[in-house]
């Protein structure tokens, strides 16, 4: 029966695994990190490590402030002043806070100057802007995506398009949202976000950092050349991702008979490491900072170390309208879009990208 068949199906999800080397010319690692714009949580795990090196610790502590503005009207983001001060000089990121992508209107600003609005049917019809229906609509189209290029608006400030957008945001349907903002400036910056938005309630926030050490941890054995694993010799990439999730959720890895919560077992073959260092940074984190962290973790193996590999995982905001570049992101039962690097001591790496149901395949 169709119902029984549907009940047995697992929700659609995609996991793309690839391997390469950091020294390789065509390595895409930088591009993929930089185009995953809205990052909520960054975590790394270093086996056989008791304390963090000074450089890593400094990098972790300086994952930069981000800003929270309450009730910011949307027309503030399309003013010439804002575009010239923040969008053109560096990379400016913005995302609405406390809005669910599958229920409400969501707005995101990408560093290439595109303002993406994901609007529900009523709001879309009231703003009067041109957009396209969402790819993930059901029977009736209830979600529309409007994309406004701010760079284009600033080059032609008197064009009809610019006037229509201003009219829509100021008079036709003034929308206000709580925004999370972050800005990576290139060169000497004079103004800051705090002073620019001083008319609104703006707060500067620091990401939350959680550091811990785990003792006697079972780690899977990996071989950098074998992405699919080798029977009896190395574990596969999907097994590693499952194990990493279990470690960060503090689940038991031994499948003890009295454990009610988890029956997960560490994939075999595995070794036991004496200590492992876990670090989690939560906030609105810039891709530029993640690039620096990735480079520093590569340099971890400049001196000989006991650890065979280290991992760096990045999770995106479940309510962001885009995942990588401008690929549309939706939320069906879960809105995950995340990637994970496994960095080996010979500068090889594995990259795993995972998305949920209402998402395009990662690039």
């Amino acid at each position, binding site marked *: 029966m169709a*119902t029984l068949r*549907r009940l047995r199906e697992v*929700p659609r999800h995609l996991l793309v695994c690839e391997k390469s080397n950091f020294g390789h010319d065509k390595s895409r690692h930088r591009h993929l990190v930089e185009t995953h714009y809205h990052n909520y949580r960054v975590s790394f795990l270093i086996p056989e490590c008791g304390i963090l090196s000074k450089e890593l610790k400094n990098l972790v502590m300086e994952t930069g402030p981000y800003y929270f503005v309450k009730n910011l009207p949307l027309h503030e983001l399309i003013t010439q002043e804002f575009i010239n001060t923040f969008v053109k000089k560096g990379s400016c990121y913005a995302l609405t806070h*406390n809005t*669910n992508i599958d*229920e*409400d209107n969501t707005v995101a600003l990408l560093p290439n100057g595109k303002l993406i609005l994901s609007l529900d049917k009523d709001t879309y019809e009231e703003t009067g802007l041109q957009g396209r229906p969402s790819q993930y609509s059901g029977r*009736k189209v209830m979600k529309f995506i409007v994309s406004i290029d701010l760079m284009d608006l600033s080059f032609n400030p008197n064009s009809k398009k610019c006037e229509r957008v201003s009219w829509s945001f100021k008079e036709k349907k003034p929308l206000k949202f709580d925004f999370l903002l972050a800005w990576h400036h290139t060169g000497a910056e004079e103004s800051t976000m705090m002073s620019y938005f001083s008319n609104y309630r703006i707060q500067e926030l620091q990401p939350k950092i959680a550091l811990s050490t785990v003792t006697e941890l079972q780690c899977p054995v990996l071989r950098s050349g074998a992405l699919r694993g080798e029977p009896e010799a190395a574990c596969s990439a999907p097994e590693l991702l499952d194990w990493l999730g279990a470690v960060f959720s503090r689940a038991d890895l031994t499948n003890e008979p009295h454990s009610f919560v988890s029956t997960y077992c560490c994939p075999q073959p595995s070794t036991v490491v004496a200590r492992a260092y876990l670090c989690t940074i939560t906030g609105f984190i810039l891709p530029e900072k993640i690039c620096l962290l990735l480079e520093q973790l590569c340099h971890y193996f400049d001196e000989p170390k006991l650890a065979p590999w280290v991992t760096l995982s990045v999770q995106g905001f479940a309510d962001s309208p885009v995942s990588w570049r401008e690929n549309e992101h939706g939320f069906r*039962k879960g809105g995950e879009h995340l990637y994970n690097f496994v960095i080996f001591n010979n500068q090889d790496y594995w990259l795993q990208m995972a998305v949920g149901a209402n998402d395009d395949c990662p690039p």
Partner: protein
Amino acid sequence: MAVFADLDLRAGSDLKALRGLVENAAHLGYSVVAINHVVEFKEKKQEIEKPVAVSELFTTLPMVQGKSRPIKVLTRLTIIVSDPSHCNVLVACTHLDVDLVCITVTEKLPFYFKRPPINVAVDRGVCFELVYSPAIKDSTMRRYTISNALNLMQVCKGKNVIISSAAERPLEIRGPYDVANLGLLFGLSESDAKAAVSTNCRAALLHGETRKTAFGIISTVKKPRPSEADEDSLPACKKAKCEG
């Protein structure tokens, strides 16, 4: 997608329980709830009790979890007609001016759904409602709920179906994603099940609003009374017209 809505919270006599119910719904993530008053249809003229005023219930409405907006509380009236000679499902679907037709779950349906009246109802915008809190309380009801729901799905193919709780106590209400999963058990597809808690509820509410309008396009709003100063200016205008 539309916001999540639960269109059936049973109004008991206890205001405090109702308040707890609405707060629990806001905490679970519902942005719109409707308090349901149920009356039996009687032959003679009957007094329908006044609905609970929302301002009586809450001075400030509770915030929906994860959003910056308060929950929206509406009221709704349900009429139970037990005499089949008065009206049966066929008539309700095709002629009566209603927004929702509730499918009973307390017993096995004595009749089968026929495709023509269901299609007429779908075209008119009438939605079919399934409730799930009896299924939480009792296992026999669970069987009836699922079998009645599957019967309905075979005919209507998942269109215009909404799922609501009929909860009387805070513990009987479930979160919107859980209810969407429950919809899978009732025979809906994944996207239809999520629509049953969001999009179709919005459609039913809009259908109710359009009953006061002409074809859903024109509506009348009561104009505020003009003040004394304005009345003086009117004769002046009239004068101007005559002279011109």
